[in-house]
């Protein structure tokens, strides 16, 4: 293996590592401190930068300049880059600002090479190309790590949102409440129907309140999903009291030509609760407390 063609890079990274690191970090910190104040740990970044440069030096000393450099997520260098990038992603950095990290390093390294290398143009070209090549790969790696982390965060969020957003509450013996909040799409509709039917069976619910106060737009698709849930619930013997349709919503629904036959509807959850209790032969009574 001939290492001499890239030897200038190795020497540069050995002799000027402190200067390169400091220049690089000054530039990165200048941008990041402005855009993400409070999210940047300067000491840690400097430590990471030093470690990364050390690994980079190691890579170039083993790298002949002909075979493609070995940068994967498993190598030491890749590990540092991935970790850094995924940390940025978690903290909400923009992809471009994260990519800036490697791009800035490339600029600093290139400048240093041009400044210190008074050798033949061939040697300089060779070195610049090697730097380009390695840092481009590093760049892609950080980008991959960034997207991966973001996707994981999004997947987790949507999962927890779906989990959280369809509770079925036992209000009183045989009376259930299903508060609907947010966008009702096919996935959520299926899930809430499943939960509702399970709960009806489990609690032998004879009345189910469906509150749609938190549904932002009641269009035909939402209506269809809710109708199907209602049909299934009625098959299990539960009566449905729908509550929380706004005056505007009611107008819009009738214009759309949607009617909820076989469903008792009340404007407010309060009125719906009274109705539901009546259906199971109960009522809420004043028992002489302090507050009337």
């Amino acid at each position, binding site marked *: 293996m001939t290492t001499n063609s890239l030897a200038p890079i190795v020497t540069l990274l050995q002799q000027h590592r402190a200067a390169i690191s400091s220049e690089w970090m000054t530039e990165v910190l200048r941008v990041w401190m402005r855009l993400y104040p409070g999210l940047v740990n300067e000491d840690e970044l400097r430590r990471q930068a030093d470690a990364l440069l050390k690994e980079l030096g190691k890579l170039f000393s083993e790298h002949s300049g002909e075979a493609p450099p070995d940068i994967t997520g498993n190598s030491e260098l890749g590990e540092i880059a991935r970790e850094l990038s995924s940390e940025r992603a978690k903290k909400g950095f923009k992809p471009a600002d994260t990519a800036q990290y490697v791009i800035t390093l490339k600029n600093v390294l290139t400048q240093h090479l041009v400044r210190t290398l008074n050798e033949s143009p061939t040697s300089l070209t060779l070195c610049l190309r090697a730097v380009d090549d390695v840092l481009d790969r590093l760049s892609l790696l950080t980008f991959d790590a960034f997207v991966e982390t973001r996707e994981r965060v999004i997947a987790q969020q949507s999962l927890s949102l779906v989990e959280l957003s369809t509770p079925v509450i036992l209000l009183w013996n045989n009376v259930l409440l299903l508060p609907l909040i947010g966008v009702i799409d096919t996935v959520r509709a299926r899930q809430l129907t499943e939960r509702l039917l399970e709960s009806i069976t489990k609690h032998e619910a004879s009345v189910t309140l469906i509150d749609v106060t938190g549904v932002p*737009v*009641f*269009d*035909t*698709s939402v209506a269809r999903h809710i109708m199907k849930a209602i049909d299934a619930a009625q098959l299990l013997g539960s009566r449905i009291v729908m509550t929380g349709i706004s*005056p*505007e919503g009611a107008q*819009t629904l009738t214009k*759309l030509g*949607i009617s909820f036959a076989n469903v008792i509807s009340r404007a407010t959850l309060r009125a719906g609760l009274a109705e539901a209790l009546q259906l199971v032969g109960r009522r809420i009574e004043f028992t002489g407390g302090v507050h009337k």
Partner: protein
Amino acid sequence: MTTQPTNSSERVPILDASDIVRARGVARQVAGRIGFGLADQTRLATAVSELARNVVQYGEDGFCEIVDASDHNEMRLGILVEDHGSGIDNIDKAMKDGYTTGGGLGAGLPGTRRLMDEFVIESEPGLTRISIALVRKRS
């Protein structure tokens, strides 16, 4: 104080279900800014929701353009929804209540027409355009 004609427009690309939420959000926002009441805002948001959902379900890709065409005398919000899917075979049928090719309620298009003051639909394979508008005299 008189309101000057603004004629601003906003375009929302419609590619997947999340764009439905965005499009109707923009429609509601623009309607509120123009001065439409809550009931009319709800109508517009619902109409946009219907049309945008059709784009996602049948039209592959498209966009929704929301235009404020108000002037001194009237508030006017126009919406154009365009998609590049296979088009609607039979517009007369599609405009009838209860007719559906996709397992829906078949109320989307006729319902939207009832919600709006103006409704124009044209469709051929590769291009479907529906423009709707809600118009209110300024009081």
